[in-house]
């Protein structure tokens, strides 16, 4: 009789587990808002989409704009830069990606990229480095004219943010 009572699940066992479960959910429910408050707030998220007019950026010129607090390069590439980027064999790349995949169709002259080095986030210097693209002074990452990583500690190509051409001279980022 006694052994039977031990092996069977009793009301009391159920109450123990149920209490424990409620306590765990309760702790979680209190902890989550305390952690989530660290996430970007509404005012930060409100800047998530921006429009930018490309008129007035000459061939060979770059500008840096801000999107979600991040600097973004907008570069009007020269024919020569586009050619070298296209001719680079994928086998030479650390993070293989064609030049076409990094620009919008029919707008190969415009390169739009988040300006933070994919290593640790410094801003690379334009028109420099061995590949005449970008050179990051922080730890020596070298990018080509398509913003692809060629040498140094950065693991991936400069990030192309989500964007679209609204007209030929107006883009919307985000």
């Amino acid at each position, binding site marked *: 009789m006694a052994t039977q009572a031990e092996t069977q699940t009793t009301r009391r066992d159920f109450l123990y587990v149920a209490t424990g479960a409620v306590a765990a959910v309760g702790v979680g429910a209190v902890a989550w808002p305390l952690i989530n408050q660290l996430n970007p*707030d509404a005012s930060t998220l409100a800047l998530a989409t921006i429009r930018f007019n490309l008129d007035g950026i000459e061939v060979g010129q770059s500008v840096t704009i801000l999107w*979600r*607090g*991040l600097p973004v390069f907008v570069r009007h590439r020269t024919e020569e830069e586009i050619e070298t980027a296209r001719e680079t064999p994928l086998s030479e790349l650390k993070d293989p990606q064609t030049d076409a995949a990094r620009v919008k169709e029919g707008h190969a002259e415009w390169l739009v990229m988040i300006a933070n080095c994919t290593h*640790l986030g410094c801003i690379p210097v334009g028109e420099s480095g061995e590949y005449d693209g970008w050179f990051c002074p*922080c730890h*020596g990452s070298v990018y080509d004219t398509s913003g692809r990583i060629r040498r*140094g*500690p950065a693991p991936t190509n400069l990030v192309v943010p989500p964007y679209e051409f609204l007209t030929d001279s107006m883009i919307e980022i985000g």
Partner: protein
Amino acid sequence: MDFPTPKNLNYFWTFGAILVMCLGIQIITGIVLAMHYTPNIAMAFDSVEHIRRDVNGGRIIQAVHAVGASMFFAALYIHIFRGLYFGSYKAPREILWILGVIIFILTMATAFMGYILPWGQMSFWGATVITNIFSAVPIVGESLQVLLRGGFAVGNPTLNRFFSLHYLLPFIIAAVVALHIWALHVPGNNNPIGVEVKSKRDTVPFHPYYTMKDMFAMVVFLIPFAWFVFFAPDILGHPDNYIQANSQVTPEHIVPEWYLLPFYTILRAIDFNVLFIDSKLGGVIAMAGSMLLLVVLPWLDRSPVRSGNFRPLFRWFYWLFVINFIGLTYLGAQPAEGIYTLLAKICVAYYFIYFLVILPLLSRIETPKPLPTSISESVLKKAHA
């Protein structure tokens, strides 16, 4: 105060007390600075200048806090290297040692966050680079980074939370220091010959012998401290940090504070992929590993002899390790190009080989010199020599 302490402790044993003093100085000057500082990206830079120019005595108080951080680390490094040489990490002091490593890591975190507060160029870019480290974590990296920054880039939310944490962490450090000292009082001090206390004849009461010796050492330590504060308060900082933060321009060359340089070198020395681990994650693993190695050190060095004085082979590798560590510091301040990247790889390799290969191997092959039978014996012999 009735703490029997080995009678042969040398001046390297005064740095524990010096560190307690340093922590006290940082906490007191920090609380004062917080009364005048404004943690907002529009005002932080100016509020620090306001402290330095307008607040009564602010020039000195701010300098004591800034120089104090450097002096704190100078003392920490001496304290740690003392432990490495005299084998203070060995049984029965493993807990004491591990608590020390925790203090070291917490202190680095605190100092890093403190350096963000003046909101200069180095503050901003240092914060950017270090928070980016977290994006190397597989899968959750990006979200973790955004969570830490409170935005997609380092900005006002980041500054606010770092201020909050910079205020909090020293009190946590103080709590761990209390545990550290408690853990010291259980086995008692190690000593320069590494032979445990055997009888009352080996010890002297802590007070007045070591209270006075510690106080004398504190005064000596305060001399260079005061020199920096009064004559060169900015010499240990970087000129770029007197330019207000600008999220669109990276300084020519980002360098952390000198005391973080060795680990910074380790971080960036890994510029190649290893199997499926890319260079960025690899650097982070190496840096974290270099600190975690200290935690497991008591189990890597199995030699029963504690003190380096009696380990003829160990001494060579130890001093090479010290030189190598200075090399890592030097390289962290150099641009990552040319010969420097190669040298950095060599120094990082030696750092790891020392812990992972040399120490375990030495404990097997080395024949130590004969140990004195007791502390008193070694003290008396020295007196007659």
